[in-house]
């Protein structure tokens, strides 16, 4: 079979195979909406707080109102004492408890130890951080207002350290997780679909392999661009890369993803076994990309395992160019890794075809 015939034949097979089409195209497109949906609010909102207001002064009520007004927190209970509040926390009715002792804010205004205390549930880190921010912000605002209004003096309570997040200025959770997970979605859907198409069919020459790779790369390239363009725009993901850089990242990622999928699908006797063993790898594959736990903090062998996956390098190249705005030359390393993986997995696929074929193998 010629390269061209194999290319067209692969596209035809994909078009005729509902299962593969569902996995490679429909699932990939569906995930573009489905995955970011639980992150679309961007930040933690209305984290529940119990306030024990022992002061009961206009100032403390003003503080509680300001916390309530913050989108981050919600005053869900006002228990009479600390013991009641802690029960609410342990029973998970609230995520935090704020204690405002008698004259706490007046003491704070005089620069004395206020005794204000906050207990936070530390099992959910994002919620814990949101509560801390909401309360700190409300206290600073209350004291600034009070000093200006009632005391008639203008003191400025400033933070001596000003933190500025770069590349994701609104600290949107979705803007962080969605670009990082995109190459994993594209890789895994292609992997599963390719397994449905080609698992157990190893008797292929180089032309057929090349044709399959070109056809799958084309499909993956189009899907990748759909994510980089349409889905990222729909989710308001901050983007910095030019179209040229995105085309190159998408091209290199698509080539490596297709090559990897062809290689992996050849290792399995049939689609049923392939999907059983491949689908559960999705979560570790995401974490191996280093998006949440940096690769430099992983032991060498774990990091090396991650380096064998196209998603790891595609994620790095995408984040460097599109999220962080690095010039394409700075993404040479992950792009080179993608090329090496493309060639290695193609050669590997050819070798599997040559050495792992068994006589009973089904051919179409």
């Amino acid at each position: 079979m010629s390269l061209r015939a194999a290319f067209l034949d692969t596209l035809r097979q994909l078009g005729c195979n509902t299962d593969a089409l569902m996995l490679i195209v429909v699932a990939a497109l569906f995930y573009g909406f489905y995955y970011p949906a639980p992150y679309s609010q961007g930040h933690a909102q209305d984290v529940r707080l119990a306030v024990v207001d022992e002061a009961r002064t206009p100032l403390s009520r003003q503080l509680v109102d300001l916390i309530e007004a913050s989108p981050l927190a919600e005053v869900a209970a006002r228990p009479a004492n600390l013991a009641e509040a802690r029960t609410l926390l342990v029973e998970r009715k609230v995520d935090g408890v704020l204690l405002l002792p008698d004259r706490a804010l007046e003491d704070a205004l005089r620069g004395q130890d206020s005794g204000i205390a906050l207990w936070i549930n530390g099992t959910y880190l994002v919620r814990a951080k949101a509560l801390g921010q909401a309360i700190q912000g409300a206290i600073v605002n209350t004291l600034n207002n009070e000093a200006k209004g009632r005391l008639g003096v203008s003191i400025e309570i400033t933070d001596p350290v000003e933190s500025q997040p770069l590349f994701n200025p609104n600290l949107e959770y979705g803007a962080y997780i969605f670009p990082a997970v995109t190459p994993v979605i594209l890789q895994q859907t292609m992997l599963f679909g390719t397994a449905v198409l080609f698992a157990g069919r190893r008797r292929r020459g180089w032309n057929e392999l090349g044709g399959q790779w070109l056809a799958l790369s084309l499909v993956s390239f189009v899907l990748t661009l759909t994510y980089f363009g349409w889905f990222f725009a729909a989710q308001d993901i901050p983007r910095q890369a030019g179209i040229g850089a995105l085309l190159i990242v998408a091209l290199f990622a698509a080539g490596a993803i297709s090559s990897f999928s062809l290689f992996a699908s050849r290792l399995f006797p049939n689609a049923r076994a392939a999907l059983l063993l491949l689908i559960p790898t999705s979560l570790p594959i995401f974490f191996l990309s280093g998006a949440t736990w940096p690769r430099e903090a992983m032991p060498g062998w774990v990091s090396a395992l991650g380096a064998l996956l196209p998603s790891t390098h595609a994620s790095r190249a995408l984040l460097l160019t599109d999220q962080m705005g690095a010039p394409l030359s700075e993404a040479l390393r992950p792009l080179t890794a993608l090329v090496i993986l493309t060639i290695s997995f193609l050669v590997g696929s050819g070798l599997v075809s040559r050495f792992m074929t068994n006589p009973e193998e089904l051919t179409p």
Partner: protein
Amino acid sequence: MTAPSAFARLGGAARREAGFIATSRVMLLALVVVPFCAIAIVAAMLSQGALQALPVAVVDNARTSESQALVRLLSGRPEVRIAAQPVSDAAAEAAMRRGQIWAFVSIPHGFGQPRAADEPIRLYYNAAYLSVGSTVERSLATALRGSIIAGIEDNAWRAGVLSDRAAIPQVQISVLFNPEASFEWYLQALIQPAMLHLLAACVGVYAMARELGGPDGRSLDAWRAETGGGAAALTGKLVPYLTVLSFWGAVWMVWLVGFKGWRMEGSLLATFAAQLALIAASLALSFGFVAGARRDVFGYSLSALYAGSALAYSGGSLPIEGAPTVARFWHQVLPFTHYLTAQMDQFLGAPARQAWGAALLLTGYAAAGLALATWLGGRKSPA
């Protein structure tokens, strides 16, 4: 001849399935090698514990003894190492853009000098990698605030140089259960049960789909004839997989609580019961999907869809409050949400009855899956 009792059908189907597992290379890989590797890889990945020595930069525009003291202070933080001291903010930002550093601190001109401008120290961090960026930011900001408020201003007081800037009021914050706000614990607690859930869903698909037929002429009708069929035989089919996967759940729990020393303040037993019920629910729902659709790929697709995304919808990372109504509804529908909530709450020390409630609810999911599989699997296979 009388029909075998439900108990006999359950036992017979369980023995039949155990026999299959013992001889199936693919199933042994899925039940032994995959969970072992998953636990080992995640445990190894996070084995360093807290993040350490992440590269950051300092732009010292002041070059005073105070600013140098600050640089020394930052270099003493275990989470970071000062990899560069660029001459300008622009150079530091370029290094961050290239991914060479995670954050940089810009110390303003005149820092530490009497009557210096009220310019704050600026701390820029990479929020495209939000989790790592935030960890670095927290470490650096804590060190800087602590030092400035407690140390340098104190020195200024002693030297008679009054700062006219009021410090932000300090709130005594106690982070319960996870006082160090350990990201390692947080990830360990989230990842492993999510992986086990997805694996159980896929194993359930394979176990049921293998009865759909193939070159050896198997069919659901043949399976019913052989085992007596019905809910009892389906339960028997489920038991061996539940046993093996629960073993891995227990291994992970022992690793977390026994070896890593993260004490569960609530009931370990109730949490384990909830995990058992989650695995049973994952297996049973897959039985139902495959029995209904009579196609393995359909079952796998649904598993990948609902179990593969369960972590995202669980609210374990970003709280679901504020998400679209559909997403909040789906969050409640997914079984994993109820397990994770129970597990995290038990770590904090919530009453055991809450986790037992989750276990009961998840048992309901398992029963629904088995009922679905019994009903849909009872139809005659198309000729």
